[in-house]
């Protein structure tokens, strides 16, 4: 087939054009026996308890430094499974495409998805394509759902225990800062890359090392602040965090200084937070350090009973304050 330049409404019409889009693009890059069987539903076999999740991805701009919407759609769903101790196995992928969207861009996105799948070994086994009139969606929305087999049970935001050590798998806020820089055209140069990445290999390393895990969560929207606050509330504990231990990239910190943001509130797409019993903390760090995307993992605090449901940030000079949930939109300071 000669590739069209733009996606047209006919690509979603169910006829010949739809057929070529599915066969020449999606089947080509996502190829596996279950998908190619092209039945109404994928028939799957699993041996253990499963975790099931879904997420829809809309991001502007759809291409950003460090990834694109496709990479995000795979990493996001795979990471949701991984955070429950589940090995990602099967994914669905639904595309809602705005009429006129560039075919080459779609191809680049689909290729990025196929590439990202390799990091967890998960497969796309079913999917759907809709093309909607110009203006009905903003360029491209992708929904991915996923199933994974639970390899480690009992991981829950309700399971934090007094004395647990809080670990962060890498520096925080890079995805949010990278998107902000590109979206707002802030005119600041610098190689600020999103942290967008698949986290299953890191989780697998923890499971292989037999680390006990109380809770695990990827710090996506709302960032580190949101995860810590949710945990403090759900487990009715206090999280005491040493501010100076939280890794923040220099460029991210610079953006925050300029506009009055907090790096802890910025989204991440390849950084997670972990709560482990104190005796397993060193083991957890050692396991994380064997994996490329989590080699900067570090301990940032401990669970206590000081003030239930709150997160306390201790400064390096002896003062402390609450770390609250981020509020509303991220808007720049005016003064």
């Amino acid at each position, binding site marked *: 087939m000669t590739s069209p330049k733009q996606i047209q409404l006919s690509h979603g019409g169910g006829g010949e054009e739809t057929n070529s889009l599915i066969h020449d693009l999606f089947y080509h890059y996502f190829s596996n026996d279950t998908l190619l069987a092209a039945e109404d539903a994928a028939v799957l076999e699993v041996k253990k308890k499963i975790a099931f999740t879904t997420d829809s991805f809309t991001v502007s701009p759809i291409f950003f430094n460090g990834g694109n919407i496709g990479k995000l759609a795979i990493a996001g769903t795979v990471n949701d499974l991984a955070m429950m101790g589940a090995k990602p196995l099967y994914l669905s992928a639904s595309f809602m495409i705005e009429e006129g969207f560039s075919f080459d861009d779609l191809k680049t996105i689909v290729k990025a998805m196929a590439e990202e799948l390799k990091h967890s070994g998960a497969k796309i086994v079913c999917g759907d394509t809709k093309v909607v009139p110009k203006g009905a969606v903003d360029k491209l929305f992708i929904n991915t759902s996923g199933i994974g087999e639970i390899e480690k049970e009992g991981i829950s935001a309700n399971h934090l225990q007094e004395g647990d050590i809080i670990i962060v798998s890498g520096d925080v806020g890079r995805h949010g800062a990278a998107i902000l820089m590109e979206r*707002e*055209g*802030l005119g*600041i140069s*610098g190689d600020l890359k999103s942290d967008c990445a698949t986290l299953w290999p890191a989780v697998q390393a923890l499971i292989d090392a037999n680390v006990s895990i109380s809770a695990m969560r990827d710090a996506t929207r709302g960032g580190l602040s949101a995860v810590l606050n949710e945990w403090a509330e759900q487990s009715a504990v206090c999280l005491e965090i040493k501010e*100076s231990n939280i890794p923040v990239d*220099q*460029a991210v*910190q*610079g*953006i925050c*200084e*300029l*506009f*009055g943001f907090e790096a802890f509130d910025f989204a991440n797409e390849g950084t997670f937070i972990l709560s482990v019993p104190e005796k397993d903390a060193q083991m957890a760090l050692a396991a994380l350090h064997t994996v490329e995307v989590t080699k900067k993992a570090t301990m940032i605090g401990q669970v206590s009973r000081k*003030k239930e449901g709150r997160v*306390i940030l201790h*400064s*390096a*000079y*002896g*003062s*402390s*304050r*609450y770390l*609250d949930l981020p*509020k*509303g*939109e991220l*808007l*720049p*300071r*005016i*003064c």
Partner: protein
Amino acid sequence: MSELQLKDLYDGFRDPDVIKALAKTITDETKNLKETLNIMEVCGGHTHTIMKYGLKQLLPHNIDFIHGPGCPVCIMPKERIDHAIALAQMEDTILLTLGDMIRVPGSKSSLAVERANGCDIRALYSPLDAIKIALENPDKKVVFFAIGFETTTPMTAALLEQVEKQGITNLYFHINHVLVPPAVDAIMADGQAKINAFIGPAHVSVISGAKIYQPLPEKYGAPVVVSGFEPIDVLQSILMIVRQKNEERCEMEIQYSRSVTLEGNIKAQEMIAKFMEPRKHFRWRGIGDIPDSALELREEYAAYDAEKIFADILPTEPIDDHKLCICGTILKGLAKPNNCQVFGTACTPNNPMGSCMVSAEGACNAYYRYGEI
């Protein structure tokens, strides 16, 4: 010339050892103070620094902070927000503004609510982005709802200069630029606030020059130190105030000498003066009318003045805050956020009743976010 690194913006001004040493020196030197130091930090940026870095916890009890009127979002009266909403609701209009203004409640609604209702309302990162938006939307009226103290006024003036130079005819200005000295004067003239020292906002002085604070020590017997916004800046400023008190001096001093001069940025001042002049009256939320405390466009730029061009649709009645809200008393330095009976209950950042809870620089917001542990 070496390029400015993002790191240079903050590095060195939060060194834990320096902070600890400064806090200890202040504690040592306040032992002989005859009275409690009630320092008003005029600017919300300083309130934010004091709360975010927990600086009060490091200082002795005879130093207290009183939060001033220096947050451009907090002091915006409801009727001005209603203006912004009325402008945004006009057909074929894009309303532009800065920061948290989007969330501040007017009398019935907020810009955030109106945006969800379909109005085209955008928050800018830089006022100059308004040019691009006006050029890209020639068939629309683009209204810039300009807010801020002396710090942000030059950007509005620079935008006007460009609009004039490029002959842009669809960009209008609703000017809400306010001035620090008249507000401080109004609070002190009231006589109720027990303020005996000031931390002056450095950003304002970079533009206007520290000279604008020179009358304060003599008028009110209170030292003024013009301070930067990093924790070390604020602590150093407090130490300078303590030393003035101990040496029985009462002067205007500049801590933020890396950018502030007595005269300020003359070019920026000239540009502001070219386009704007003092407004006879401006009503500050919670404080009331303060003469000559804000700016408006000069008559010769009336063609750009949204307040004149769209006067027919702009409400004129002053509207007060909810009677349970004590933002006005807080802005006057007479109460702290936790003295308010709706603080943290009926009034939270998610559902603010008063403007001090909305803005990240508002005293209530800072108390709510960072609290007292």
